[in-house]
């Protein structure tokens, strides 16, 4: 079947009140409110044992020997396994051919490349004993330390120690680009300059750590894992262990957040079922926070060296960017190579700016592997673009709002082809920016007045225009999967519907929004819809929840399945009404002949005929009332063309963030005084949930803008963090209140016009804060080009700007 674009609710259905577009309260709320929601750590099985992983305390070392004897002698310890024991498990797949293979094994063998790398597993009666034993294994492991590389510069130095002996250097990816028109623009422009921007190492940090419970009985694997992608976990376990895939069931129980970190397939997902099979008992591993900080993926950690060509009138002619991502040891599946390409592709934000040339690098260091985190490269790029615009404004004296006005995308430019091949389908870029600028101008005046009498405080404003690529291809990330997702929809004899979805819920209210979609596409109430996901046995194959994709893929697959259900239901109803199928319509949940209200047949009568009273079906009709839809988003491309361009996202949400900050010069104290979001994710399914996504996204963006950074010792590459005490996770006191407004520019090619909204909030704050602080301290010559913008970073910038012995 080809997909009609855009897909809409079947026109034969009419309903008292549509549910799509309404702030339907969440059906998921009662269980967390009453303590009944079951996360993986809440699950126990009879006879279950607990596992603790033994993790490298060394940043870079050879494992000389492991003596498991003392650990095994501890009462309560059942087994200890090392990497060598898993010789029947294949390494993690290597599917992307333009990146260097890291050869990651389920447990490290012979060599460890970051603190936290798992190299052995202990099985014991309880977690306490397992941790005692893990400490004993660690204490009896002999390491031979190797020189470690702690950052990009060290990794790229000519005599740098190599992480992988058979590589020529420490580049996981080195993907050059050169554009003739960019070279020409640099020759023709009035001026050019160079600059550097830095987005530090951060991560998603869901409040629930990871966890896996595995139970292998009669060759049947059941695995509960806190993962965003249960089907991909299943396929990977099958590929690595040789266990037939139909015998593996992966269940995502209730999840306590993910934010991208749980899209990856981790060693523990593979080792745990292996252990259960080996020892014949269910086994559980629940990650503790220290493990989580060193062994769940990190993200960001990018540096951008840019050259900018501009004219006296404030026109930015061209930008050349070397985009570096420090991906840590690189030992993670899927690899952490994709975000920097997203940065490169989206760096021009919501602006009409074709003359962009990006050379992408991924570099390995002796740190935790980097991977996915909400925003996935886009915030890093925005920091660069908005910083460049403000810098050019300062250099030319042209107003920074005016430069943005000249560059921001206009509606008549849609669809707009970006420099890297991104095809922005639609949006309200100019309108959103004007509205954000208008809203923030009001508070700027008020806040300036508030601090007018305090000479120690400066006030500044920051503006951004971003795009949020949604529903991206997974092919460029994994080299394997691509872009579709699925729904299997059934109407039961009582007339209630049940949908199985290939996506998952990690806390974003997917059950509620899916029920709204199903309700409208079958003319039911949401209360009559049951939603099942996160279970490979009960839901159809799908790629899971990441990349702000659930809105589009759920809408498409549900509409496809619902249309197929409706075709059959209509035939059954027509038979019962002794009418022609094309004359039958569905009004307020009842099938009847168009133009007449009675007689009618209900969903229950139709479904009862399909499943139970099959004697009532039209002669020869196949029983049953269950249909599936496998939806591949239109316009989504999976491979670059000959020039390297690719539209790697099905749709493009947009937004403008603006914020006012106050900065206390003497202390560097920084406060966001006001924050404005004008947001456009196309058709809104549930505005309440979308606002929640924006609020939470902005909070994480603010965390990245002002607080969070994983710091490593520059000599040893040892982490300088072990808890939330060293990685500052914002509380209620730190996150600003914000104003949120929406435009709804429907995605022209996507089902219902939806676009997706999971990540946009996270994208803006880094650039807003950096630009606003630079603005506030402009008269001191301060320019902020790195996050997090901490008080000490501000004080240092003030000292540096005022020169040696500077007084400010």
């Amino acid at each position, binding site marked *: 079947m080809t997909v009609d674009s855009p897909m809409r609710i079947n026109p034969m259905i009419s309903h008292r009140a549509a549910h799509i577009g309404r702030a339907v*309260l*969440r059906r*998921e*709320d*009662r*269980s*967390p*409110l*009453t*303590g*009944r*929601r*079951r*996360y993986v*750590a*809440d699950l*126990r099985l009879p006879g279950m044992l607990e596992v603790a992983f033994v993790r490298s305390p060394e940043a870079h070392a050879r494992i000389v020997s492991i003596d498991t004897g003392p650990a095994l002698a501890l*009462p*309560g310890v059942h087994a200890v396994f090392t990497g060598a024991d898993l010789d029947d498990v294949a390494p993690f797949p290597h599917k992307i051919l333009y990146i260097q293979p890291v050869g990651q094994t389920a447990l490290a063998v012979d060599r460890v490349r970051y603190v936290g790398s798992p190299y052995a597993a202990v099985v014991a009666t309880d*977690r*306490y004993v397992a941790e*005692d034993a893990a400490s004993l294994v660690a204490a009896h492991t002999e390491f031979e330390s190797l020189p470690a590389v702690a950052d990009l510069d060290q990794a790229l130095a000519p005599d740098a120690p190599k992480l992988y002996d058979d590589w020529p250097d420490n580049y996981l990816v080195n993907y050059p680009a050169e554009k003739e028109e960019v070279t020409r623009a640099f020759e023709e422009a009035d001026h050019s300059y160079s600059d550097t921007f830095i987005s530090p190492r951060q991560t*998603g*940090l*869901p*409040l*629930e*750590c990871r966890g896996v419970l595995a139970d292998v009985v009669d060759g049947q694997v059941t695995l509960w894992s806190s993962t965003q992608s249960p089907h991909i976990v299943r396929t990977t376990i099958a590929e690595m262990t040789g266990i037939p895939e139909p015998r593996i069931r992966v269940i995502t129980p*209730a*999840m*306590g*957040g993910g*934010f991208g970190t749980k899209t990856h397939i981790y060693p523990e997902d593979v080792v745990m079922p292996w252990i259960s099979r080996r020892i014949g008992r269910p086994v559980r591993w629940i990650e*503790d*926070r220290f493990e989580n900080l060193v062994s769940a993926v990190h993200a960001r950690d990018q540096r951008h060296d840019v050259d900018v060509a501009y004219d006296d009138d404030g026109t930015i002619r061209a930008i050349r960017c070397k985009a570096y991502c420090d991906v840590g040891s690189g030992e993670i599946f899927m690899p952490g190579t994709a975000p920097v390409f997203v940065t490169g592709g989206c760096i021009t934000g919501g602006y009409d700016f074709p003359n962009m040339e990006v050379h992408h690098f991924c570099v390995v260091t002796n740190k935790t592997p980097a991977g996915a985190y909400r925003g996935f490269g886009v915030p890093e790029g925005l920091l660069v673009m908005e910083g460049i615009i403000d810098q050019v404004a300062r250099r030319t004296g042209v107003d920074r709002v005016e430069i943005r006005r000249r560059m921001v995308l206009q509606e008549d430019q849609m669809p707009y082809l970006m420099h890297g091949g991104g095809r922005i389908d639609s949006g309200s870029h100019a309108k959103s920016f004007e509205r954000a600028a208008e809203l923030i101008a009001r508070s700027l005046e008020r806040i300036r007045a508030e601090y007018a009498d305090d000479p120690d405080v400066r006030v500044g404003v920051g503006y951004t225009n971003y795009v949020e690529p949604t529903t991206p291809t997974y092919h460029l990330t994994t080299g394997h999967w691509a872009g579709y997702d699925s729904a299997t929809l059934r109407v039961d004899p009582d007339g209630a519907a049940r949908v199985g979805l290939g996506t998952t819920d*990690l*806390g*974003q*209210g997917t059950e509620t929004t899916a029920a709204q979609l199903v309700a409208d596409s079958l003319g039911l109430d949401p209360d009559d819809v049951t939603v099942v996901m996160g279970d490979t046995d009960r839901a159809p194959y799908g790629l899971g929840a990441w990349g702000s994709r659930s809105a589009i893929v759920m809408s498409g697959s549900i509409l496809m399945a619902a249309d197929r259900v409706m075709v059959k239901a209509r035939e059954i109803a027509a038979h019962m009404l002794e009418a022609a199928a094309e004359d039958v319509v569905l009004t307020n949940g009842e099938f009847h002949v168009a133009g007449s209200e009675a007689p009618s047949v209900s969903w229950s009568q139709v479904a009862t005929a399909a499943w139970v009273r099959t004697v009532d079906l039209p002669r020869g009709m196949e029983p049953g009332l269950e249909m599936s839809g496998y939806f591949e988003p239109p316009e989504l491309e999976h491979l670059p063309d000959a020039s390297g361009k690719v539209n790697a996202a099905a749709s493009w949400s947009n937004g403008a963030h603006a914020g006012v900050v106050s900065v206390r010069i003497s202390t560097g104290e920084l406060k966001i005084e006001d924050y404005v979001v004008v947001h456009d994710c196309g058709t809104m399914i549930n505005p*309440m*949930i979308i*606002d*929640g996504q924006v*609020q*939470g*996204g*902005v*909070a*994480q963006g603010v965390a990245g803008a002002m607080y969070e950074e994983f710091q490593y010792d520059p000599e040893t590459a040892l982490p300088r963090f072990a*808890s*939330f*005490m060293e990685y500052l*996770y914002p*509380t*209620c*006191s730190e*996150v600003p*209140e*914000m104003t949120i407004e929406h435009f709804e520019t429907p995605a022209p090619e996507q089902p219902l016009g939806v676009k997706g909204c999971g990540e946009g*909030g996270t994208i803006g704050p880094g650039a807003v804060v950096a630009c606003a602080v630079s603005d506030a301290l402009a008269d001191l010559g301060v320019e902020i080009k790195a996050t997090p913008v901490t008080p000490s970073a501000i004080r240092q910038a003030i000292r540096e700007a005022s020169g040696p012995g500077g007084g400010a």
Partner: protein
Amino acid sequence: MMDTNPGSREVDVAVTINGAQVRERVPARLLLSDFIRDVVGLTGTHVGCEHGYCGACTVIVDGDAIRSCSTLAVQADGSNIRTVEDLADGDQLTPMQQAFHENHAMQCGFCTTGFLMTLESVDSADYQDKERVVELLSGNLCRCTGYQNIVTAVCSVWGVDD
């Protein structure tokens, strides 16, 4: 001679938890959070950081909100403990639970039970302006919501201007 196995020493712990008497012999080093979750089986108390920072494990012991992940079970011996499972009356949510629902004050829900117990432990009369409410809530971490809706929910129940 000193016992070198740190897990071998056991103690009796007797508590009242949500009105029920519980007496168990447990390892002396057992955390109260693990006692509540694994021994008593009340898994609504969540463990988010295990170092007393995030507040997901907050329970009420003899009237005070405490971090059960950084308390030993034996320290709670003889006390009266309340957990999130004690809040709703059967199907009937408390006004605060209802306000969390109506204001979309949770997403993944992992932190929610800790917030509810912090709120349950105080007298709202002591928190009659928004700044005080924000200060109170700052002892619990949430990664999903950005806190704004939690503040709104609390203010709506306590009659504080939001």
